[in-house]
């Protein structure tokens, strides 16, 4: 016997206690006379009754120990807040950056043929804050971690990383200052590094090579994170946006998508944590997501720009900036 069309749509919410009292009463009344719906509800409750619970789950005995070993060995270093004296001068940053992107991209390239444009400027902060003068943007970011102009105020913590990057933007984009909207290529040209990196599908094992942890980060991660809280003011709600900022000073990926490309990516973007509606939309990606996303871009032949963290340390995950094509 099948549940009836009229009430069918309400039955699950009814079973799950998600209906308003009124609707719930209506359904309850209906169940008295409709065998089909009653049978559905009974089935749902029987499933609930016999549903596996957490005690039906085997946890490897050493699991917690393994996790803690990974943490104490620095496999998951916490983000540290850049010193107020940052940013450093450009020349001294460059070598670190180069090391950084190699560390990131070589493993990626080993698994997928990745064609990535590497350059020194994250897109996100620069484009949204382009009206401000570089030094002003830098000051703002360093002093208060205020969101760049145009950003949503709801997720300040998510800006811990973004603001940091915008400071860098401001610094590095100085040559291009005055241009309201700088294209990817032009921005790349504004710095000295502009590398088109391609590799083929051969060495499949390199993936693990970047698990090495920067010791500095580890030390800082174990220390009280007063700094982090200063920069990520506990101002507002936006719980998940804030939560999603974990290691947000990781690398950043910028991509410009036209409608067709967006369609080709399907609902992939929806899987990521959106921290800012944009444009550019800013997503927070885990290491794995970043990895997969770049692979997908490669498959679809969409160019992306990858920037490694300002301190040259890749710590897993990063931010994705998605701009609409004109």
């Amino acid at each position, binding site marked *: 016997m099948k549940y009836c069309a009229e009430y069918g749509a309400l039955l699950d919410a009814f079973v799950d206690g*998600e209906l308003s009292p009124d609707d719930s009463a209506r359904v309850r009344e209906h169940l008295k006379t409709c065998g089909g719906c009653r049978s559905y509800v009974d089935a749902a409750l029987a499933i609930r009754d016999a*549903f596996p619970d957490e005690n039906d789950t085997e946890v490897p005995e050493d699991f*917690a120990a393994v996790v803690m070993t990974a943490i104490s060995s620095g496999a998951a270093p*916490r983000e540290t807040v850049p010193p107020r004296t940052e940013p450093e001068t450009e020349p001294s940053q460059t070598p670190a950056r180069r090391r950084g992107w190699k560390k990131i991209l070589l493993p990626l390239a080993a698994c997928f043929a990745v064609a990535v444009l590497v350059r020194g400027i994250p897109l996100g902060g620069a484009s949204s804050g382009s009206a401000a003068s570089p030094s002003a943007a830098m000051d703002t970011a360093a002093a208060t971690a205020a969101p760049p102009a145009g950003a949503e105020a709801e997720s300040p913590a998510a800006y811990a990383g973004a603001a940091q990057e915008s400071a860098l933007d401001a610094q590095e984009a100085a040559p291009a200052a005055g241009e309201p909207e700088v294209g990817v290529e032009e921005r790349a040209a504004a710095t000295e590094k502009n590398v088109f990196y391609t590799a083929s599908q051969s060495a499949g094992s390199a993936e693990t090579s970047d698990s090495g942890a920067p010791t500095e980060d580890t030390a800082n991660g174990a220390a009280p994170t007063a700094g982090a809280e200063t920069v990520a003011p506990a101002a507002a709600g936006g719980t998940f946006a804030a939560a999603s900022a974990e290691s947000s000073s990781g690398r950043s990926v910028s991509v410009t998508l036209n409608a067709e490309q967006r369609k080709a990516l399907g609902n992939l973007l929806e899987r990521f944590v959106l921290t800012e509606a944009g444009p550019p939309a800013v997503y927070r990606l885990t290491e794995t997501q970043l990895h997969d996303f770049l692979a997908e871009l490669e498959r679809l032949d969409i160019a992306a720009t990858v920037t490694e963290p300002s301190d040259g340390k890749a710590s897993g995950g990063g931010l994705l900036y998605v701009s609409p094509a004109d």
Partner: protein
Amino acid sequence: MKSPPSVSPEQERAWIDAARGGSQDAFEALVHLYEKKVFALTSRLCGNPEDAREAAQEAFLAAWQGLPFFRGDASFSTWLYRLTSNACMDLLRREQRRTSAAGPSLDDEEINIDVPSPMESPQEAAERRELRAAIEAGLQSLPPDYRAVLILRELHQLTYDEIAQTVDADLGTVKSRISRGRKLLRKFLLETGNFSPPRPSKETGKEGSQ
């Protein structure tokens, strides 16, 4: 937030705060507190124990990294499940790409629910354990997105809102996934003969305790 009775919300809160401040001991306590619930999700979402373990580990490492940014007035568990479900989905997608297996799509419209009449056999609510095993099997037959919301609903006992936050979908999507997922599961159970519908009496009309 459901914790084992031995751990008070205050205690958990204290662990979260300490772990946020960098205490690895406190974080380890949280790992112990949540590992079962996390594995309950990963072991059912991921196809094999290795992936389940990897995803669980990734979730906890991400939690460690994210804690400094975690706002304490939110539900830690929901946040952790979100990290967990993300880790699983990432692994699944990677796996899928590797095998190029086109699983059932969420866009497949209207699942054909042509449920045979419930068997009226007096077989007493066919042993719970048996049904439970069948449910496990049925869950594996579901598309991962349906599986995830059902597990979060029935095992982790999250509300629709919490599930929406966890799987990063809107409320309507969650509703529809739960509904379709449950219908698919019910269909599976009926078709495999593992499901003897309950005595249609006392429980009817009682809303699920959420």
